[in-house]
């Protein structure tokens, strides 16, 4: 059941030019950034060789690439998630799902996994770029895997917020603006920590960026993983509640 909804969601994305254009633009921009990172690496290569324990190709190319990808995805995910529920509500197609023998959980999970499929495709395409480097060098596979994991968890978190906002908002654009705002806020929350004497443990913990960077650096910590899982879980549950609430009032 969940799979049926998810696969339809994914199909419809690719039936419109939206998914294709997002994939194309993302790939183009990230490929360009990837190229500049390689350029940087090659220019420093001679100096790096002289240093003991110098940062490798993974640190110099993969880390910034995934870092940049995370920021671009922060902009892109709201565009993908905005239509999930709010457009169905506008087009009155939601009643098809509501009168079918489906629970709210199945509907929300179906939508979530549908969009996650799309985002995972993006992550996979990004991961292909560093893999191309093994033609001429060595990758730190552990760190590379950590980067993929970090980015996957991050986009899943983005998707869950976007889905929730789409459940709340009556119009897709509003959903996109709200989820973008919330994501950006969670992203920059950590910045106050930079000001002396203003550090806040709570903000530090809440910031997505910090947890993302921790995993990215190859430091697999239960705190970071569970932060993301809790984050995703919370917004999925909120979405389910919100959808069921639809029946009560209009």
């Amino acid at each position, binding site marked *: 059941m969940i799979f049926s909804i998810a696969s339809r969601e994914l199909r419809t994305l690719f039936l419109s030019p939206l998914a294709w254009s997002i994939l194309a633009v993302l790939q183009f921009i990230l490929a360009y950034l990837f190229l500049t990172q390689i350029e940087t690496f090659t220019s420093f290569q001679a100096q790096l060789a002289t240093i003991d324990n110098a940062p490798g190709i993974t640190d110099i190319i993969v880390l910034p690439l995934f870092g940049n990808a995370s920021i671009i995805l922060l902009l892109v995910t709201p565009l993908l998630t905005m239509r999930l529920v709010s457009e169905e509500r506008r087009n009155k197609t939601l009643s098809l799902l509501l009168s*079918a023998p489906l629970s709210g959980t199945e509907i929300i999970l179906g939508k979530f996994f549908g969009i996650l499929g799309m985002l995972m495709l993006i992550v996979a395409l990004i991961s292909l770029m560093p893999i191309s480097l093994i033609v001429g060098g060595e990758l730190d596979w552990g760190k590379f895997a950590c980067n993929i994991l970090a980015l996957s968890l991050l986009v899943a978190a983005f998707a869950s917020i976007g889905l929730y906002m789409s459940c709340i908002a009556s119009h897709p654009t509003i959903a996109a603006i709200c989820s973008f705002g919330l994501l950006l806020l969670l992203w920059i929350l950590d910045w106050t920590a930079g000001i002396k004497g203003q550090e806040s443990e709570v903000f530090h913990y809440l910031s997505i960026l910090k947890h993302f960077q921790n995993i990215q650096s190859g430091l697999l910590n239960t705190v970071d993983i569970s932060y993301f899982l809790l984050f995703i879980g919370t917004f999925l549950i909120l979405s389910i509640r919100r959808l069921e609430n639809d029946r009560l009032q209009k």
Partner: protein
Amino acid sequence: MTTLLIEAKNLSRYYDNHCAVDDVSFSLEKGEVLGFLGPNGAGKTTTMQMLCGNLAPSAGEIRINGFDLLDQPKLAKQCLGYLPDIPPLYKELTVTEFLEYCGRLHGLSFRQITAAVNLAKARCGLHDVAERLIINLSKGYQQRVGIAQAILHTPEIIILDEPTVGLDPIQIKEIRSLIKELGSEHGIILSTHILSEVQESCSHVQIINQGKLILKETINGLNQRMNTGTIKVVTRSAINHHSFSDISSINSIENTSDTHYLIHHDSNNSPIELVAKIIVDSGCGLLELSPVKQSMEDIFISLTSKQTEEETA
């Protein structure tokens, strides 16, 4: 005793303070085609949405095929096919793709889906447009896809909200015969504000106005009610109403203009002869005397306006 397909008890629904449906109870048995009739904003759609689990009732209880809609929503919804007032179509899919998706949502197996989709397409005459995108179809065809979606999984109960809107007369005829055909093995509720449609395709009729159920009848009962007759009378000069007061079967007399009258009377015993005699005797000059066949529209209007009058009184 057979289990009732739908059992709705004391349904009410409020939107903030506005009461859309007020204490409505009814039931539906297998083989019945129940017509839900009412003016715009009467609460037809709200009632249907509640039956299909799209809206939670503010008060009351709904049992679908013996399953409570709140306690066992999945089992209850398994027996339902619903066509909302705006057909819920994913317009970027083709007709076949869309129907297959609907089949999967209702938990049909892969084999069942192919058979069910073919049957639904045949029943709704969709074979010619099966591979076209829904967005490119005309309104009538989209409506047909909506109906196909509702009957796809052969549910025990089919709920159709204004199924013939936007169809041409031939299609309306086809849909009506389809409803009749389905009605023999399923229970059907359909809403409409077109009275002839109820007459054509329903076995029972329910009239709802301002959220209240004001009439529940079989079609035969309704037709009987419709026999209350009216006579149109035109005379040369005005006549005194009191001259008719002796005729017991006359209910009321209405002046449409100075010398035009509408005489409402009981159907069982027509006063035409007596009326003619009185007018001729009075010497007012009988110019025209003809029975007026009362349509369902008249009953409908008289029932709905009576209720409004009672309320304002």
